[in-house]
């Protein structure tokens, strides 16, 4: 039977078998021992037509919440921002979508050029000197930051803010176990929600590989990064930042960060149930040879024309094997391209406006909630996420869902040690009417 993905006809098969001198396709599988073939059991799955497959997938998609029936106040590292149509359309161009890693530079200038642009934009946002062309996600980028700090400092002890995204912390815990790291947890101030600086000072007495902070942190509070680097000396200051905030907030590079990582999903990508995501990774030039991930560099061709190639590949697994700076090969290229296009569209001043708009809406909501007697848990500065105080967060969350509002479950905040709060996230997509409705719903809850 013919299949639309496989062009060969009976005549083609016969011609090829004749050229090979084989009687059947089965004969070509001689290399597989009979004993293994005899054990084979088929999956036993019928082939569906495109029409049937589409119907099936549509039915599955409709088993999820219908996005039209809910208003989302969920964030916590995965955001519901508006994505300009141009981003999605450009990503659908098959020359970007279907090509491989740009190993043949002359036929990959499109990819190599946007990699260079992406690296430049990540540097601009973070205030750092060099950036790679992507990591798997914000969490794995953070794990790579620990590995790199270990390589440079030759130490295995890290001070980690308790207020980083608990899902990222869980990933770090995996590496803590696998690489035998020691973690010192830095609490947050119960009033401000910001890092407890006295605890940082104390942790710095032990010789540290690095201090890991997130800003805005998981509770939405913006950290005071100023002065942290001085407290920890040679240890790496590793900052995990929300890149959407970096048009408005001072870049971590300004405060002496050694590595800045971001989860880039907020810049031009739908939530997609949490993946694929986009890890961003930036550092200072002095550490470039210890950096993980692919890099595009500018050069010229033999006629002097400007072009781009992958460079410093001697750090990478395909050259350095067991001594590579990372095992990463396939990365998140297409998402990095999407973010490059997103940032080109929103532009130099647009990203700040985006941050301000998000902040204005979130602060309006918090004022209205406060006026209605619902308290915000921390008084530290915030951008578009904040924690409200509720006595029974799970029950409140369920009531909100029944009224058509999505908020993060209480269990995630509990991982940060907060069991009387709910995290609310406000993006530019939320209208004043929706914010007011949430206030009413919370008043009743």
């Amino acid at each position, binding site marked *: 039977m013919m299949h639309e993905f496989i062009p*060969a006809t009976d005549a083609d098969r016969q011609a*090829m078998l004749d*050229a090979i001198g*084989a009687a059947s*396709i089965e004969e*070509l599988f001689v*290399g597989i021992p009979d004993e*293994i073939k005899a054990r*084979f059991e088929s999956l036993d799955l019928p*082939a*569906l037509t495109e029409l049937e*497959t589409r119907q099936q*997938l549509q039915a599955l998609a409709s*088993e*999820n919440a219908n996005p039209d029936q809910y208003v989302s106040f*969920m964030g*916590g590292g*995965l955001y519901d921002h508006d994505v300009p149509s141009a981003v999605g359309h450009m990503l659908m*161009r*098959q020359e970007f979508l*279907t*090509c491989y*890693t740009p190993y*043949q530079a*002359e036929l*990959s200038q499109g*990819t190599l050029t*946007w990699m*260079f*642009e992406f690296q430049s934009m990540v540097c601009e946002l973070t205030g750092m000197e060099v950036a790679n062309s*992507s990591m798997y996600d914000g*969490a794995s980028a953070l794990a790579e930051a620990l590995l790199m700090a270990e390589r440079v400092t030759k130490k295995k002890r890290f001070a980690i803010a308790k207020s980083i995204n608990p899902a990222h912390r869980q*990933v770090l815990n995996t590496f803590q*176990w696998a*690489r035998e790291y020691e973690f010192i947890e830095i609490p947050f101030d119960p009033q401000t929600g910001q890092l407890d600086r006295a605890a940082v000072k104390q942790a710095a007495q032990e010789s540290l590989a690095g201090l890991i902070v997130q800003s805005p942190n998981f509770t939405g509070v913006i950290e005071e990064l100023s002065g942290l680097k001085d407290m920890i000396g040679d240890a790496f200051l590793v900052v995990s930042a929300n890149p959407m905030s970096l048009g*408005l907030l*001072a870049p971590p590079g300004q405060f002496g960060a050694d590595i800045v990582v971001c989860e880039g999903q907020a810049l031009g990508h739908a939530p997609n149930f949490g*993946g694929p995501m986009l890890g961003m990774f930036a550092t200072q030039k002095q550490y470039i040879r210890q950096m993980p991930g692919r890099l595009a560099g*500018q050069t*010229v*061709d033999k006629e002097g024309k400007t072009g781009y190639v992958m*460079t*410093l590949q001697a750090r990478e*697994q395909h050259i350095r094997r*067991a001594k590579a700076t*990372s095992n*990463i*090969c*396939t*990365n998140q290229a*297409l998402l990095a391209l999407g973010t490059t296009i997103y*940032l*080109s*569209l929103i532009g*130099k001043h*647009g*990203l700040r406006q985006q941050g301000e708009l998000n902040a204005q*809406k979130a602060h309006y909501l918090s004022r209205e909630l406060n006026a209605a007697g619902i308290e915000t848990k921390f008084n530290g*500065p915030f951008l578009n996420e904040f924690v409200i105080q509720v006595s029974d967060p799970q029950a409140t969350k369920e009531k909100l869902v029944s009224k058509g509002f999505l908020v993060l479950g209480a269990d995630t905040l509990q991982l940060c040690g907060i069991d009387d709060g709910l995290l609310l996230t406000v993006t*530019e997509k939320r209208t004043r009417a929706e914010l007011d409705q949430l206030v009413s719903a919370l008043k009743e809850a």
Partner: protein
Amino acid sequence: MSTIFEKSVPGRIGYRLPEADVPTEPIESLIPDALLRKEAPNLPESSQIEVVRHYTKLSKMNYGVEDGFYPLGSCTMKYNPKINEDMARLAGFADAHAWQGEELSQGSLHLMYDLGEMLRQTAGMDAITLQPAAGSQGEMVGMMLIRKALEKRGELGKRTKIILPDSAHGTNPASAMICGFEVMETKSNKNGKVDLEAFRANVDDTVAGFMLTNPNTLGLFEEDILEITQIIHDAGGYCYMDGANLNAILGHARPGDMGFDIVHYNLHKTFSTPHGGGGPGSGPVSVVAELAPYLPVPVAVKHDDGTYGLDFDRPDSIGKMQAFHGSFGMLIRAYTYIRMLGSDGLKSVSDHAVLHANYIKERLKDTFNLPYDETCMHEVVFSGRGAVEGAHMTDIAKRLLDYGIHPSSIYFPLIVPEAMMIEPTETVSKEELDEFIDALKAIVKEGKQDVNVLLEAPHTTPVRRLDDVKAAKELILRA
């Protein structure tokens, strides 16, 4: 080609935000001035059409699977069905938050569970995680599973060594190293397979595990695989299969039946999710029952009442590898693909991938040196050495660009000098195969007449040969 930065004109915008519909306050009254950015980041200022034109132009300087034959070995550059893209963009999937709760995520979880079952059974294994972002992260998960198992057995400090063949992909040793293992290479024999004698000598009671791609990176099935996995098991180690080459054996053989304990899949190779210029991918990992308790959290499960869920309650789990549940968008595409092919279709995929590779092998073996002359699986590895006096493999590959065909992988695997690794996949037509074969023959012929045609190639691409040394010396990495 100029960058988008060079095209920037102050004042232009490519996207507008709505006015605030809430009462506003000066931003400095909301966020202390010291925390605010003083100078705008130097992002481009372009109108929408300029951005669209710039990236359209860039796209035209690339070569995609829809442009023509793309026989990049080990990468499985098959056709990426259009329907995959539409399904991944269905609003119910695309707009879903990873943490919106089981009741509101039944469609996503149902798909994950079913795909997991299909992949698990395809490999003949007992349990699966869909979380790893790519093959390499899958390898890291696999190495961590071994680490956990050894820890449980109280043998962690004692078993320190991962053995892998000299033909292994670079990610294999790199992944083992990150998880704290030492890497020992075992040599290949004159037939391109694991040398059993040398292998046996390397195995002792310090072995934690063994990693192998099968068929291996030469496109050859390791015929001693049952013995190899037995030797490792007898010595108390675990066997990891790098599943990068699964496109060769679908419907014919299963890693579980070869004695492997762990196997990763590259959904971006075997199961048609697009490579995206380098990613994203997806690298699920399946395991035998003994290792199942250690899989990363959460695992997609089906409850007794027929609903689907995420199981976080796995006390022996190695933990999380990604913030959320894996490359869900890629899982949708792979699921779509598998449903359209069904089990017979998947077998047909491997049938044709293998047929095509052998056809190329047969037709080119008089033109290029074939270091291992036997029936191959889904890819064939030639050596470019000696094909054209004075020319390297890279010169031949660059000349192929002038013929409008993407070259094969070159210089991998490392054990073949001047390697040319050709993987045609099942989605190529015989006409395209013949065109590729004829082009390579023509290149060798023209090279023999005038080697400069090769050394100067490519002649027709958007740029000519680029200066790698200059790039590495000057390190211009941002605009």
